């Protein structure tokens, strides 16, 4: 099974772990991620204004590559996923926007949201199946209490993302369970860490991360997993009480041969 893979800028630099473990785990689970040729950065956040065209072109190009290859486009980073999924939605449902983009790109092959976009976790859930993953896991994580940190980008806007129940998601918990560990549910798991405000508003981010960290710790989490490099950076930088891992690291650990 092959998928087109959009790693995004951060996974090539500061979040290499997220990328490497995703690829290796994929191979262990029987699917392959083929990187999009010469992909461009998605921009990190989706500009909601409907007159913003240029900021969404990189995503459209990646989507067109998936359409041409005839396979779904897979992302791992929450931010890339959010931007690409929202762009795809706009291309499919906003005819005026799609028309402007197609005129701009003007390569004779108009795009109207034909490609499918999957987050890596959705591939695990919908295509591989968590029960299959469970069979392949080694049990090294048994008894570990792990909290899923969704943040905002994976879940919202839910009408577009369609990822999971935005207020009571379970996909990462199901993955943690499949990996052999015990998921810990805590109240702030779907609240924002502060995101890019890390640059200008470190105090705001510190406050947000403190709330999330407290909530997770109170619920008894021994570690947090996330799909977003910026969430991880913010949590770690602001002195999280528990280690913060990428979900792919956890998956990889559970799938490794050596215990």
């Amino acid at each position, binding site marked *: 099974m092959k998928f087109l893979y959009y790693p995004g800028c*951060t996974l090539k630099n*500061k979040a290499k772990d997220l990328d490497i473990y995703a690829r290796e785990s994929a191979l262990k689970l029987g699917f392959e991620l083929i990187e999009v040729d010469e992909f461009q950065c998605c*921009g*990190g956040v989706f500009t909601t*204004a*409907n007159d913003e065209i240029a900021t969404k072109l990189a995503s459209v190009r990646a989507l067109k590559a998936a359409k041409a290859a005839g396979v779904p486009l897979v992302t791992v980073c929450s931010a890339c996923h959010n931007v690409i999924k929202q762009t795809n939605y706009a291309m499919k449902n906003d005819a005026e926007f799609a028309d402007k983009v197609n005129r701009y790109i003007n390569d004779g092959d108009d795009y109207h949201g034909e490609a499918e976009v999957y987050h890596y976790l959705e591939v695990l859930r919908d295509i591989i199946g968590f029960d299959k993953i469970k069979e392949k896991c080694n049990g090294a994580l048994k008894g570990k209490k792990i909290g899923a940190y969704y943040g905002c980008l994976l879940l*919202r806007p839910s009408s577009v993302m369609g990822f999971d129940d935005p207020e009571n998601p379970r996909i990462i918990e199901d993955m943690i369970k499949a990996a052999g560990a015990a998921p810990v549910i805590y109240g702030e798991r779907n609240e924002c860490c502060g995101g*890019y405000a890390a*640059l*200008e508003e470190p105090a705001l981010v510190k406050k947000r991360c403190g709330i999330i960290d407290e909530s997770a710790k109170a619920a008894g989490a021994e570690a947090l997993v996330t799909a977003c490099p910026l969430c991880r950076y913010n949590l770690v930088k602001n002195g999280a009480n528990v280690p913060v891992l990428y979900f792919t690291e956890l998956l990889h650990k559970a799938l490794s041969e050596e215990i």
Partner: protein
Amino acid sequence: MKSKNELLRENIIRTSGADVKKCMKCGKCSGTCPSYDEMEYHPHQFVYMVETGDIEPLLNSESLYKCLTCFACVDRCPRGVQPAKVVEAVRLAAIRQQGKNRLTPDGVEKYLDDEIPQQAIVSAFRKYTK
């Protein structure tokens, strides 16, 4: 002739794609906003002030740059108003003015450390510059 302010208001409503008239003033957006305490004008006020055309104070407010675009208000709004999109449209109206870019390539350096992911930098540029 429409006034400058009226044109601005129409432009913001158009680019946001949000219907501010739908708002029933329940304040749920502000009840859920993670940046509430940092904001001078809160999400429900953005919606209301755009509705009434009182936009100048918003354009000059720091609140524009406190929204984290986390979409909590969008998802939870019972009226489908999408406050985050209104904030974004006002912010774009502000930074698209001549010389109003909030972040410059030179200016960004002071915020950086060794670990900061690229994602944060590109996102900030997306949000703070035209």
